[in-house]
């Protein structure tokens, strides 16, 4: 069980391509998932009775085993990026919708009341007061969804996608552990890098959250 450094050195391009592929699959899934969740979350926040059904549906999707979900989708959408993304997006919804709603719920009531009383329109209040104040909770949910998605992208190797998952699958089939190790290390590195990037983004967007009594 030794690592074949020479293989790694000779296949940097392939490793980089797989990593990039993994990154793109993850970003699309989280991006689309976030856009959907923002719409669903805002709807659930505004019309509270919708929250039960929306969260229930997202929860239901979340409980379907990933392999089974892809198996169900393949007859309709084939072995494609679309199939992979439908699955990946579905799994982000539960985390992100909850994040959006609990973020908005955590906005101080008095700030919302003051904003309304001072003559904010509903839309202006959402953009200038409620969403900015919900941001820390929402970003926390995005971080969680991102790391989860990086893991799930691996599984999409079984339907011909998978980025680093492909690398690992091939290494496994060929009994070539170096490829597996490279896949593991690269995906962990990717997860850490994205998480740090999100933390950095949050710090940039919420300077107020770091302010404390001087």
């Amino acid at each position, binding site marked *: 069980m030794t690592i074949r450094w020479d293989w790694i050195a000779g296949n940097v391009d392939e490793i980089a391509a797989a990593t990039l592929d993994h990154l793109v699959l993850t970003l699309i899934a989280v991006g689309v998932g976030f856009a959907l969740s923002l719409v669903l979350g805002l709807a659930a926040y505004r019309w509270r009775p919708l929250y039960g059904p929306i969260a229930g549906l997202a929860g239901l999707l979340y409980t379907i085993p990933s392999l089974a979900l892809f198996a169900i989708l393949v007859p309709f959408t084939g072995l494609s990026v679309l199939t992979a993304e439908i699955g990946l997006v579905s799994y982000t919804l539960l985390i992100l919708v909850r994040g959006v709603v609990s973020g908005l719920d955590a906005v101080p009531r008095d700030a*919302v009341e003051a904003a309304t*009383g001072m003559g904010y329109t509903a839309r202006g209040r959402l953009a200038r007061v409620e969403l900015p104040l919900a941001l820390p909770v929402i970003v926390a949910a995005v971080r969680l969804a991102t790391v989860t998605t990086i893991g799930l992208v691996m599984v999409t190797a079984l339907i011909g996608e998978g980025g680093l998952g492909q690398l690992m699958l091939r290494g496994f089939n060929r009994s070539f552990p170096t490829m597996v190790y490279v896949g593991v290390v690269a995906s962990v590195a990717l997860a850490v890098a994205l998480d740090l990037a999100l933390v950095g983004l949050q710090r940039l967007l919420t300077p107020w959250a770091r302010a404390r009594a001087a």
Partner: protein
Amino acid sequence: MPDPARRAATVAFEHVTKHYDRRELKRGTPGAVNDLSLAVPAGKICVLVGPSGCGKTTSLKMVNRLIEPTAGRILLDGEDAAARDLTELRRGIGYVIQQVGLFPHETIAENVATVPRLLGWPAARRRERAEELLGLVGLDPAVYAGRYPVQLSGGERQRVGVARALAADPPIMLMDEPFGAVDPIVRERLQDEFLRLQESLAKTILFVTHDIDEAIKMGDLVAVLAEGGALAQFGPPAEILASPASPFVARFVGSDRGLKRLSLSRVADLELLPPVTARVGTTATEEHRQALAGTFPWLLLVDGMERPVAWIARADLRVGTQLESVPSVPALPLLDRRATLKDALSILLDADVHAGIVVDRTRRVLGLVTVAGIAGLLRETAQADGTDGTGTGGDGTGGDGTGGASTGAGRADPGGTEPRDPAVDAPGAGGHGAGGHGTGATGRVG
């Protein structure tokens, strides 16, 4: 349309009713209001006071239409609030709430400039206005403008809340327990500062509190609301204290309302005693001794400008001796004419000589206030209490609209030589002993 050049507007409730149907009732829904009619003149502070569930907050929120009335109208400068565009209406009314509701993600300057930004002022003007207002509420803009709310104390946040409500110079301000979330000492200071501010601002202010003392202190007019949202009494604080309209109001203002009236009356309202005085450099005479033979045995030594120098006890006066060589006590306490009787009484009870020397701006002696004199006013009120509700009451104080007053210079050493009059001591010690909050600045309607 209210004229924007005018600084204040009238506010009139006309048969305003708010009922909640079952669908609207949820936790924290404020109380109902039942056929409320009252008119607040421009530039006055009207305090809505009552027990919880009396609809005072509901009444306030119907002015900026956070709550829409079930029936009746609210007229702002004669114009129906319901006919106004909602956001335009709200941007023209200052709004301060108990928890302040500062935006945690905005700096203090941005918070203060909220309404100006909504109104589309350019950034430079907003900044300038925010700094001006921070200065007005006693916060140094250089220090506070760039801070976030979390970096401020409770009292500082309340000040920012007031500054924010004033930002676009609205003719009307709504204040819902604006000083409720701070400790009593800070609250008292904020109240005093706000009253001083209001003297120059002259906004029309609706002010909600559950605290009758705050209502009496802050209000030009006080509206006492009963549970169920009915108006129990509406009038100047002195009138409500002197003649409560119902047993409910009498109970609500409290059995110590005679003492409460002391904070409404000022030294200037009392008949001052003429002191027995002697110039520095003169000698004691038999006339001095004769004049001091009455109930108040202290000679007041004054300088050439009639300014107090020292007290000399009758027992120490020897006819023919130089007055400066006679043992004396410092000429304290000094009282401003505009000091409240509550403050004056508190200081007198602590003083060596049980008389306050009332002085004018140049420290010239105007006369003396004694505990007995204040007790006289207490007795008048007590007689009014005896006829509960219908009594005419005492003089009820009036129209000293000036302000910035404070009680006089220092207090005399405790452990005085003069025995206290127990009959007078008792009520003072029992009620408002602590006192000494040195203010004046109310502009009362007489």
